């Protein structure tokens, strides 16, 4: 069997294992291990097991994962999340799906302080899912909104996705960050529109609340003052150069704990339970990321990306045609691979093709990051969906995948708009940096 055939067989086995309800992390781990053992020898696969486990678990970038989960958990424990959603409910709860729209906007805001989709989905999930449940929102809508909205983390700057792309493509990080702003806002708008359309046709998905007076609105917002203060301090601290986005996660968690003790809404027992819960969620998420990184070398060794690249450069198509085929490849690869792994594997292959065709690499970067986001919520390996599942234990994963589908289509439409109108991506970088 050729390496590429072994690679494809590996993906087939992964599908079968997933269908048999083998936990996602175990299935990816087993396939990654087996593939590496076949293509690179058993000792190499064993060595990879040790190095990927330890490297991911000690990764400086991923420290945000437990810290933001802790922040979300304590915010929930102290009732801060509740008061935040009471405020949102008082303000726009009378609109159908209003809380879901507010959650999308919250995801957009969180994306402005976090560079990671995983952290965004985790924190927003911890804060919002229970609350939307409380107001009788359909779990398909609430989980779908958080899984999809969380992906905004890598489109709206700062973004780990753009940083990796910039370094792989030798492009400007600043231009890429600027290029992500308008598409990020556009996508945010598309998500709100999707919520509105869904709730228009299915009012029960996001039931409208009673009309509220101006006084109720003011009271609601006042109740959310502590958590709003913490959010402002955290974002301000990053942009003011007091701490890095990673450290902001610890500062945010620390502030929530301190506010909780001061306001007597947090007990030591409550803090301990929230901490233990955070550790368990961290393990869930990190094992999936470790397993995804076992698959990455397997696919590199299978030379599947090179095979696709060779096929593409032999195609007799205009530039836009090649671009669309590449987007299609990303959508398909995104079904199986974790986003950043996919970026690392594909860039050395696709990037030279793109530059040869004269396609603007900044524009391409935005398109790639959007397809990565789609991969994060597309079955069977949708990392953000798994993350939401780790927060919403009692919602079957099928419901979450069903819930994200409308948002996946909203992203597809956005992708179409970005392909058709490069200016949406390029206007800001071209007018602000020369």
């Amino acid at each position: 069997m050729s390496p590429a055939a072994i690679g494809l067989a590996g993906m087939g086995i992964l599908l079968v294992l997933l269908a048999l309800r083998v936990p996602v992390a175990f299935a990816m781990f087993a396939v990654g291990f087996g593939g590496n053992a076949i293509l690179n020898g058993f000792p190499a696969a064993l060595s990879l097991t040790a190095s990927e486990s330890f490297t991911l678990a000690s990764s400086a970038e991923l420290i945000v994962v437990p810290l933001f989960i802790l922040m979300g958990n304590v915010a929930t424990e102290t009732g801060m999340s509740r008061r935040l959603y009471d405020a949102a409910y008082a303000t726009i709860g009378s609109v159908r799906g209003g809380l879901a729209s507010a959650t999308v906007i919250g995801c957009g805001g969180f994306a402005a302080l976090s560079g990671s989709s995983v952290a965004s989905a985790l924190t927003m999930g911890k804060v919002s899912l229970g609350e939307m449940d409380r107001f009788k929102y359909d779990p398909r809508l609430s989980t779908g909104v958080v899984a999809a909205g969380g992906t905004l983390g890598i489109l709206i700057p700062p973004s780990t996705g753009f940083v990796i792309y910039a370094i792989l493509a030798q492009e400007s990080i600043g231009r890429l960050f600027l290029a992500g702003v308008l598409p990020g806002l556009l996508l945010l708008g598309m998500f709100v529109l999707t919520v509105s359309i869904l709730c228009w046709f299915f009012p029960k998905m996001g039931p409208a609340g009673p009309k509220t007076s101006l006084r109720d609105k003011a009271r609601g917002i006042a109740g959310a003052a502590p958590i709003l203060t913490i959010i402002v301090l955290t974002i301000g601290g990053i942009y003011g150069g007091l701490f890095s986005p990673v450290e902001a996660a610890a500062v945010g968690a620390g502030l929530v704990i301190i506010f909780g003790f001061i306001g007597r809404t947090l007990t030591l027992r409550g803090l301990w339970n929230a901490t233990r819960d955070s550790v368990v969620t961290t393990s869930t998420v990190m094992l999936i990321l470790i397993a995804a990184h076992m698959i990455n070398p397997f696919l590199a060794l299978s030379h599947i990306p090179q095979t696709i690249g060779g096929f593409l450069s032999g195609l007799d198509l205009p530039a836009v045609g090649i671009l669309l085929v590449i987007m299609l490849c990303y959508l398909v690869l995104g079904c199986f691979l974790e986003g950043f792994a996919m970026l690392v594997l594909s860039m050395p292959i696709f990037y030279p093709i793109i530059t040869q065709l004269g396609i603007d690499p900044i524009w391409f970067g935005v398109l790639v990051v959007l397809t990565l986001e789609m991969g994060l919520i597309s079955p069977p390996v949708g990392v953000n969906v798994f993350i939401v599942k780790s927060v919403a234990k009692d919602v079957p994963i099928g419901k979450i995948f069903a819930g994200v589908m409308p948002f996946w289509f909203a992203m597809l439409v956005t992708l179409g708009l970005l392909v058709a109108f490069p200016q949406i991506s390029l206007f800001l970088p071209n007018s602000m940096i020369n």
Partner: protein
Amino acid sequence: ETLKLAHWVPPAHTLTKSTIEPLKNGVEADTNGDLTIDVFPGGELGKGPLEQYVRAVQGVADIVWGLQGYTSSQFPRTMVSELPSVLPDGKAGYDILWDAYDAGQISGEFPGTVPLALWLSEPNIFIMKDRDIRKPEDLKGLKIRVSGSAAAAIIEALGATPVQMPAGEIYNSLQTGLIDGVVTGASAVADFKLDEVANSYTIGAPLGRISFYLVMNKAKYDSLSDASKKAIDDHSGRKLSASAEEGWNAKAKATVEALKATGDNTVIELSDDDIAAFGELTVPVTQKIVSEIGAEDVYATMTGQ
């Protein structure tokens, strides 16, 4: 037979042209294609630069590229080459590394592998945002990013505060003012896009260099045919190291010229007096570290004393 060469930078990095291609093309031509080298860039064979050496020892890859400075506890003696004022004027960095290696003074730090190339980067410089560094006092209280304990000692000796952070965060941290600057080689400016956020560069202070290795799994090397071994020997060692070091120096030179050509940058080239003022503070750090680890022999070989 095919050897797997793994690294974690993009294919467009200086490494490809200066180091990988001479080895790959030379070996493949000499063996008429019997021995080929398959390159896996960007961390495709595993995440993280810290595990590179282990990957070679355990055979995940046959050849790996890495920085001693990422796992400095493994290379205390080799890293003497990185310290301020160790490399004598007019001598090449790879020569002092190989002199010490051939004398058996650092070879114990490379168990399980055969080094194919060892070399030094261009000298480190100050890469600053909104701060011009002309004399040591200008650094008082500034926050400077460092990656290892030797660099931290040098920064502290200069009166600044060393700040530890992952390489991927430097860009954002310079932009927001979390750090005031970075000390590294000019060739790294483009790698991490620092020119977009930094605007003042100071060249000439004795701040040391960065050392690199390209190593091959020893068992794999031993298993090759004599012809293959000879092909590798003929295209590695000092010859390959020279090519690598030239690549880094050329990149650094081009980077500094580009920085000067861009109007909004300040590029400060220190006078001999200023250099001496910095040296008074940084050179004692070298002495201190050398005696702490008992590497006087390495120091003597490398400085040619």
